[in-house]
């Protein structure tokens, strides 16, 4: 609801992303562009991420008010002593895949045995490790794990048999690459993917994090948090309903490259959010438990997170406001688009 009394005086808010500007964060850019934040009295500055920037650290230091971070990458700092909390679970699914070429004969997790398997580390590897174990493979001995670069060259040039890829980004990159044998782009039919959501070892990804101490002590901050979540979700709903406009907003925000690539990404991101059966931003308890179980069994967390690792009251308040305003926060009507990738993602 936009019945804000302090009209004119906007509260400055800084949001730390976990990577550079791209459609992965479309909802926030849309909310800025469409004035959703301003409507609730916030003046939001979006801070891009960097290779070595950890959103949780920035959030804790006070250099940002809210941060976007994957759940495991928020829980570990919490265990290390940063009192941060997940206030809205935006993505309802994991986007991580293990991609290989069809002719390599890898059709399931079991086929990874004896193969050279790439991963990025940074906590991205736990879905893979748990997946391997789920079919009885020992990651230390049965496969050869290697550090992967940012790009997909190692897969394309055959150095590794299966590469880690985000469905919204690196997977698309392979499809934007010319296959030297045919002179055409690689086709989805050339690739075989392992989706951790299907294997059952998926972990939760992008969520909005806030400073737990301040939520406790500072009523104004808590109120800001509700407004922030509300306007952000409104942004995500906008990106679902007005796909092309949202894509244009992201492109205008200046990722250096890739018109078709950003559209592909936006489409896939929408797939990760919508539908949200309990309402966008609400924690899916089963997935939370799965995430925590894998994190602890793989040793990423020493023990299960303490209470308060996520809170649901803020998201519920925000959802209530949105529902009252007639915004569809479930998104049952969302159906994925067909995006045609162009060479180089142009």
């Amino acid at each position, binding site marked *: 609801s936009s019945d804000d009394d302090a009209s004119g005086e906007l509260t400055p808010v800084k949001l730390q992303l976990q990577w550079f500007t791209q459609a992965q964060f479309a909802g926030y850019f849309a909310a800025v562009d469409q004035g959703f934040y301003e409507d609730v009295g916030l003046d939001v500055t979006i801070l891009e991420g960097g290779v070595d920037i950890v959103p949780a650290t920035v959030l804790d230091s006070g250099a940002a008010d809210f941060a976007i971070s994957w759940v495991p*990458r928020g829980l570990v700092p919490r265990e*290390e002593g940063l009192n941060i909390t997940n206030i809205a679970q935006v993505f309802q699914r994991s986007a991580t895949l293990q991609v290989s070429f069809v002719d390599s004969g890898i059709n399931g997790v079991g086929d990874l045995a004896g193969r050279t398997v790439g991963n990025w*580390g*940074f906590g991205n590897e736990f879905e893979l490790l748990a997946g391997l174990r789920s079919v009885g493979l020992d990651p230390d001995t049965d496969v050869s794990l290697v*550090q992967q*670069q940012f790009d997909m*060259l190692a897969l394309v040039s055959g150095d590794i048999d299966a590469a880690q890829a985000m469905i919204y980004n690196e997977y698309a990159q392979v499809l934007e690459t010319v296959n030297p044998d045919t002179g055409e782009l690689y086709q989805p039919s050339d690739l075989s993917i392992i989706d951790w959501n299907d294997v059952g070892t998926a972990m939760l990804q992008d969520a909005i994090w806030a400073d737990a101490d301040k939520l406790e002590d500072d009523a104004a901050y808590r109120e800001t948090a509700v407004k922030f979540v509300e306007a952000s979700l409104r942004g995500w709903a906008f990106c679902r309903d007005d796909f092309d406009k949202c894509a244009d907003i992201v492109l205008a925000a200046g990722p250096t490259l890739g018109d078709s690539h950003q559209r592909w990404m936006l489409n896939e991101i929408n797939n990760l959010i919508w539908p949200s059966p309990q309402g966008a931003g609400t924690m899916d308890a089963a997935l939370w438990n799965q995430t925590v179980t894998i994190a602890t069994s793989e040793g990423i967390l020493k023990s299960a997170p303490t209470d308060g690792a996520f809170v649901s009251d803020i998201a519920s308040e925000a959802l209530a406001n949105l529902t009252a305003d007639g915004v569809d926060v479930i998104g049952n009507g969302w159906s994925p688009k067909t995006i045609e990738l162009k060479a180089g993602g142009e």
Partner: protein
Amino acid sequence: MISRAFRGAAPATVVGLGGLLFWELSLLIINPEGFVLPAPSGIIAAFFDNFEEIWVASRNTGFIVITGLVGGVALGVLWALLVSRFRLANETLTPLAISLNAIPIIALAPIFNAWYGLLSPVSNQAIVVILVFFPVFINTTKGLTDVGATEIELMRSYAASSWQVARTVRIPNAMPFFFTALKIASSLAVIGAIVAEYFGGRQDALGPLIVQNAGLTRYTEAWAAVLAGSVMGIVLFVASGIFERVSMPWKPDAETIGA
């Protein structure tokens, strides 16, 4: 000899302990959580807690460091010899060296990985070589060319060949320049190897250990791995100091740096 080495290590030990104390205390005062920059006590504890892992990683990274350092120093000296001897070499190889050096590792890493494949150690070694050779090249060239006029005249009066001039005048004259460069290079080799490892290859090495832990905000563990790299750098530095003393017996002590 041994007691001398101990005396040489005394200042470093005192400064080191003092520095650690200051670091620990100032964190206690300004940043008790000691998060991004953890307290030394925590780092050292983490170092021993994860000793096994760090040791294996150090060995793997150390291999790249040493091989790259040796290759880079050899290349730098060779390059300097060519450039100080042949004008055409100077006009071509010098700008080439500068160009190579101006390319950040992060841009070279993908290219080298493409050239040699993700799994080959050559791509990492090549990065270390490129980082190391430049200061060696610049300093050595300066030392080879910055020779006293009297010395050169004397050699000309002996009709010494340019190789003889190089051996008897230019190379001894370049020694202090070279050793300064070697000391700069020893730390560059370590950092080069570590950074190169971020971009792919084996995961049981210091680079991945550092980024992974830092990325998960396990800063004490990350700094413990950093500590291993630093120790490696200091060892190489001290080794080049000893090498320097042995190679330049004429130097009054005052003229060597550090160690």
